[in-house]
């Protein structure tokens, strides 16, 4: 009797589970259609429009935007490892008629974290191979300070007298905070290895973009962490809860650096902007995987980790930014070996 009861209960349970799964399949069809029609998740999109002010042609290289000081744009070149500074009024970085291009060469095969300190007009270059922070003058590219960090690090960022680094430790990521005194002596302050009960085993980047805090943004996870210089930490989630995609490497193909396979990462482009963390959406932006025809959608999160609103950038046709940087009311988009400079008009 008991066996019969258990068997019946099991069959009934299996039937119930299968009906739920059938219901999910039916719901999937309509939701998927709706998702694609709505171009992503519901967002608070601020009415905004952009005017193209300038378009600067770059050479065929792999670049990222480091920052803007006065009228100069700072780029990192990967094919010829270097930091390049060009006046934003320049038309071409390769043209010989412009001679106001400054270059700071980097060591090949070295791993760097580079950031532009717009306040002190310096560039901080962290070399994770030599464990040295070199501070150079952004105007003339001359070295002003050289500080050696005792601990190994993979990525680093400096905000005032505070340094935040990441270190791989038994496949877990460890964030370490240091203070630099007036004599450039580095003192360890605190480490963060378990955040919100989740081990941070995802690779990402630390940024501060001259705001008043750091952000650690993993590439492959819908998370970000806001860390202030008093070592308070806040965990936030990006609105697109995209899980991990295939990790890809940059490889040399003939003369170009290319990705070993198509990139599908959650957070690829992000910067601080007026104390908001601006993250380009991986879903709602135009990607070859999602068949969604927005040009670019940038989601803004406050430093408490909450989503606030999104800016839709209807830039030039078919522009897919490799990187972006927002300063004051100007947006610098790096795409197809060009820098597009837009004025953003956001309606409050």
């Amino acid at each position, binding site marked *: 009797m008991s066996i019969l009861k258990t068997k019946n209960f099991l069959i009934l349970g299996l039937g119930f*589970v299968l009906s739920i799964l059938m219901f*999910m399949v039916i719901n999937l069809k309509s939701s*998927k259609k709706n998702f694609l029609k709505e171009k992503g998740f519901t967002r608070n999109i601020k009415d905004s429009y952009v005017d193209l002010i300038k378009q600067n042609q770059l050479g065929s290289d792999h670049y990222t935007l480091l920052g803007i000081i006065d009228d100069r744009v700072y780029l990192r070149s990967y094919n010829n490892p270097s930091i390049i500074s060009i006046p934003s009024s320049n038309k071409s970085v390769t043209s010989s008629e412009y001679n106001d291009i400054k270059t700071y060469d980097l060591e090949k095969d070295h791993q760097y974290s580079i950031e532009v300190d717009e306040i002190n007009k310096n560039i901080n270059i962290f070399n994770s191979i030599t464990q040295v922070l070199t501070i150079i003058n952004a105007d003339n590219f001359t070295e002003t300070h050289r500080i050696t960090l005792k601990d190994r690090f993979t990525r680093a960022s400096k905000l005032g007298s505070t340094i935040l680094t990441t270190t791989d430790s038994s496949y877990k990521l460890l964030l370490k905070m240091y203070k630099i005194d007036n004599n450039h002596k580095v003192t360890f302050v605190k480490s963060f290895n378990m955040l919100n009960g989740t081990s941070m085993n995802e690779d990402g980047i630390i940024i501060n973009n001259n705001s008043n805090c750091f952000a650690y943004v993993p590439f492959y996870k819908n998370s970000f962490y806001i860390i202030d210089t008093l070592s308070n930490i806040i965990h936030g*989630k990006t609105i697109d*809860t995209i899980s991990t995609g295939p990790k890809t490497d940059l490889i040399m193909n003939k003369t170009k650096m290319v990705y070993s396979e198509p990139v599908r990462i959650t957070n690829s482009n992000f910067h601080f902007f007026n104390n908001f963390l601006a993250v380009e959406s991986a879903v709602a932006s135009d990607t070859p995987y999602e068949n969604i025809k927005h040009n670019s959608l940038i989601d803004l999160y406050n430093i408490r980790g909450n989503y606030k609103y999104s800016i839709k950038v209807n830039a030039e046709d078919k522009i897919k930014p490799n990187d972006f940087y927002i300063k004051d009311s100007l947006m610098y988009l790096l795409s197809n070996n060009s820098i597009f400079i837009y004025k953003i008009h956001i309606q409050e």
Partner: protein
Amino acid sequence: MPIHIKKTVNVFICYFLLFVFVYTSFDKIRTYDSFINDLNKSVLIPNFLVFPTSILIIILELTISVLLLFNKTKKIGFMISGLLFILFTGYIFLMLYFSPYLPCSCGGIIGTMTWNQHLVFNITSTVLSFIAFSNEKK
């Protein structure tokens, strides 16, 4: 299989499932906002069912944990656990192969797994639950 081996196997599976359900259910309660937020973005669950689903999952996980604590109710606990893992496996399979995007709504350590690792974890847990169910004395 000799009875004493079956018993030992069942004890291990029982502790494993207890850990999984207690840990994940409490983590879902602790980060409930985030859990709801992630369920909201699932293409498999309609919006009006998100709240009841979230509550039902937590209640089911806690109920299974309680059922696994007592010898008299262990068998039913293993069975419901197996059924729940079939549902979770089906959900992950559908999400992984048919969803246009992948939200993650899992708690704690399990949340750090990739979707493929998650699928393997759930299939393994389903198999273990039914092994323990069949080993449990009638």
